[in-house]
C-alpha cells in the first residue's frame, strides 16, 4: 500500500497554492483525500481514546486509509466513509493488541486523568475527541519543538516528511523527534482527558503558543523552492480553525486564529522571483481579502482580554492595521506603535521593543526609533535583528557610519543564509549611495 496523503494529490478547499498544478484524480481518490483532510484527526482521537494506544492507533489508521485507496475505486465509496475507516482501523489495532498478548508482550496503555470518560463504542456517530488529543500533544512536559510537530502529525495528519520540511530538519530527525515525544507521553504518564480545571486556561495558552510556533515555522526562510512553506503554515491555520470550532468561546483561541488568518492572507505576496518581499514592497492585490475579512470579524468579537489572550489580541490588532492599509503609506503607524507600547508594558519583551522601535520610526522619525534601541543588545544578546534595525534606521536618519558599522555587526551575527545575503546587499547599496552623496 503506497497511498498516503500528500500535497502532490488533490487538496480540496485548501489554503495552499500548489493545487492547480496537481494532475486530475479519479473520484474515489479525490474522495479519500477529502475524507483524510476532514476526518483524520477525529478518527485518530477516537481510536486513541478507545484503545489508549497512541502508537498502534496511528499505524492502524494509516493502514485503513491505505485499504480504502485499494478498495474504494473498485467497490465504490462506502455510504459512511468515516465509519468504514474507523471500523477498519479499530480492527487493525485490536489485531495488533491480540498479537502482542499471544507473544507475551504487553505495552503500557496511555494514562488517563481522573475525570476522563471513555467515549461510547459506537462507530456510526463519531464523537469529537480532538480537544483531548490536542491537549495531549501540547502538554508542557513535552519539549516545545516536539509539541507542534506532534499536533500537526496526530491532529491534522500532516506527514512526517512535510513536518520535517516545515521545520527545516531531515525526515529522520523529525521521525525520531515524534517517536521520542510519543514515548515520553506513555512512559511519563501524560494523561489523556484534559488538565485539571484550574489549569485549563494556562494549558490552552500553551496550545495556542504551539499552534503559533507551527505557523511561524512555515515563514522561517529556507532555501530554494522551500524559501517559505506557506502551504504547511496553512496546516497550522487549519489546526487553529479546528480549535476555534471546538472552543468558540475561548478568547486566546479566537485571537490566535485571527492573527494567523491576517498574517497568512499575505502569503502570495511574500515571495517574488525566489526572493523574500518585505511588507512595504508587497503587491497588496495578492493579499487574500476574504481571509483578512474573516480575521477582522474574529477580532471584532474580542474586547480587552487578560494575559496571553490579550497579548495575542494586540498582535492581531497590529496585523489588522497592516491588512487594512491599501498602500504602505496608508498604514496607521501611530496605532501600531501604541499597540506595541501596550504589549511591551505587558511582556517586557525585547523583541516587542524592537518591533516598537520600527513602528515609532515610521510614526515619528528614524531618530525616535533609534532611541528605543538603546541598551537592547543587553536584553537580546547575539540577536542580529537589533543591529539590522539600527542599521536601517541609521541609514534613514543619514547616520551613515553608524549604519555601516551596524550592518557589519548584523552580518557577523546572522546565521540564516537568506537574511545574511539580504544584509550584505543592503550594506553594498549603502556604500554606493553613501559615496554618491559625498
Amino acid at each position, binding site marked *: 500500500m503506497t497511498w498516503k496523503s500528500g500535497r502532490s494529490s488533490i487538496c480540496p478547499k485548501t489554503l495552499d497554492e500548489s493545487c492547480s498544478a496537481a494532475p486530475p484524480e479519479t473520484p474515489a481518490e479525490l474522495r479519500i483525500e477529502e475524507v483524510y483532510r476532514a476526518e483524520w484527526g477525529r478518527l485518530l482521537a477516537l481510536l486513541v481514546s478507545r484503545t489508549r494506544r497512541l502508537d498502534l492507533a496511528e499505524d492502524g489508521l494509516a493502514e485503513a486509509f491505505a485499504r480504502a485507496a485499494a478498495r474504494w475505486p473498485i467497490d465504490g465509496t462506502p455510504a459512511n466513509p468515516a465509519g468504514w475507516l474507523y471500523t477498519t482501523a479499530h480492527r487493525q489495532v485490536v489485531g495488533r493488541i491480540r498479537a502482542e498478548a499471544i507473544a507475551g508482550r504487553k505495552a503500557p496503555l496511555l*494514562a*488517563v*486523568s*481522573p475525570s476522563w470518560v471513555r467515549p461510547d463504542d459506537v462507530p456510526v456517530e463519531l464523537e469529537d475527541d480532538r480537544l483531548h488529543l490536542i491537549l495531549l500533544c501540547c502538554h508542557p*512536559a513535552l519539549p516545545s519543538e516536539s509539541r507542534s510537530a506532534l499536533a500537526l502529525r496526530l491532529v491534522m495528519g500532516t506527514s512526517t516528511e512535510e513536518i520535517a520540511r516545515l521545520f527545516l530538519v531531515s525526515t529522520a530527525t523529525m521521525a525520531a523527534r515524534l517517536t521520542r515525544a510519543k514515548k515520553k507521553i506513555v*512512559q*511519563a*504518564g*501524560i*494523561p489523556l482527558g484534559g*488538565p*485539571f480545571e484550574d*489549569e485549563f486556561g494556562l494549558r490552552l495558552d500553551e496550545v495556542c503558543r504551539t499552534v503559533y510556533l507551527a505557523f511561524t515555522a512555515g515563514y522561517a526562510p529556507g532555501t530554494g523552492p522551500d524559501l517559505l512553506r506557506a502551504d504547511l503554515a496553512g496546516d497550522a491555520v487549519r489546526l487553529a480553525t479546528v480549535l476555534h470550532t471546538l472552543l468558540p468561546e475561548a478568547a486566546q483561541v479566537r485571537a490566535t486564529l485571527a492573527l494567523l488568518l491576517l498574517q497568512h492572507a499575505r502569503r502570495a505576496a511574500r515571495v517574488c522571483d525566489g526572493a523574500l518581499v518585505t511588507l512595504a514592497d508587497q503587491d497588496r492585490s495578492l493579499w487574500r481579502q476574504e481571509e483578512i475579512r474573516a480575521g477582522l470579524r474574529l477580532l471584532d468579537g474580542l474586547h480587552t482580554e487578560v494575559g496571553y489572550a490579550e497579548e495575542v489580541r494586540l498582535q492581531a490588532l497590529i496585523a489588522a492595521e497592516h491588512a487594512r492599509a491599501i498602500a504602505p503609506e496608508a498604514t496607521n503607524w501611530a496605532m501600531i506603535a501604541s499597540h506595541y507600547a501596550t504589549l511591551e508594558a505587558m511582556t517586557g519583551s525585547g523583541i516587542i521593543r524592537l518591533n516598537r522601535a520600527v513602528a515609532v520610526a515610521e510614526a515619528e522619525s528614524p531618530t525616535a526609533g533609534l532611541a528605543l534601541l538603546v541598551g537592547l543588545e543587553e536584553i537580546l544578546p547575539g540577536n542580529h535583528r537589533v543591529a539590522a534595525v539600527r542599521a536601517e534606521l541609521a541609514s534613514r536618519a543619514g547616520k551613515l557610519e553608524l549604519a555601516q558599522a551596524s550592518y557589519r555587526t548584523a552580518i557577523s551575527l546572522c546565521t540564516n543564509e537568506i537574511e545574511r545575503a539580504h544584509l550584505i546587499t543592503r550594506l553594498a547599496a549603502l556604500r554606493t549611495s553613501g559615496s554618491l552623496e559625498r
Partner: protein
Amino acid sequence: MKYFVLLAGYGEMPLWEDLSPEEQEAGLAQHYAFAEACAARDGVEMLGGEALADVSMATTLRTRNGELVVTDGPFAEAAEHIGGFYVIDAPDLDTLIDLCKVLPAYDMEIRPVLDMPEDAG
C-alpha cells in the same frame, strides 16, 4: 504508575538549613499537608520519601579504570541543592503535578520509576 520526585532548593525555596525556625516549621506543615493530600487522592499512594542531610555529609563513589574512588562531596555541583525525595504511586503525571503544588516552592524533578523484572532467584 510509580514516580520519583526530587526536591531541590535552587528556586524560591532556599536550602533547608538556611531557613529560620519559623520557616522550617511552615515548610514541615506543607510536607504534612502533601502527605494528607496524597492519602486523600484516589489512586495515589506515598511509597516513600526522605529528607537528606546537607551536602557536606555527602560521599561520592566513582569507578575509574576499574578502580573504586571514594571522595568527599556531591557527584555534581547541581546536586548540592538536593534536599530530599519522594516516591509516589499516582495514576498520571497531571495528578502528581497537581499534588506537588502543596509542597514548598522547591524546584522539582519528576521521573517515572521503571518496572524492573521480578527477581527469579
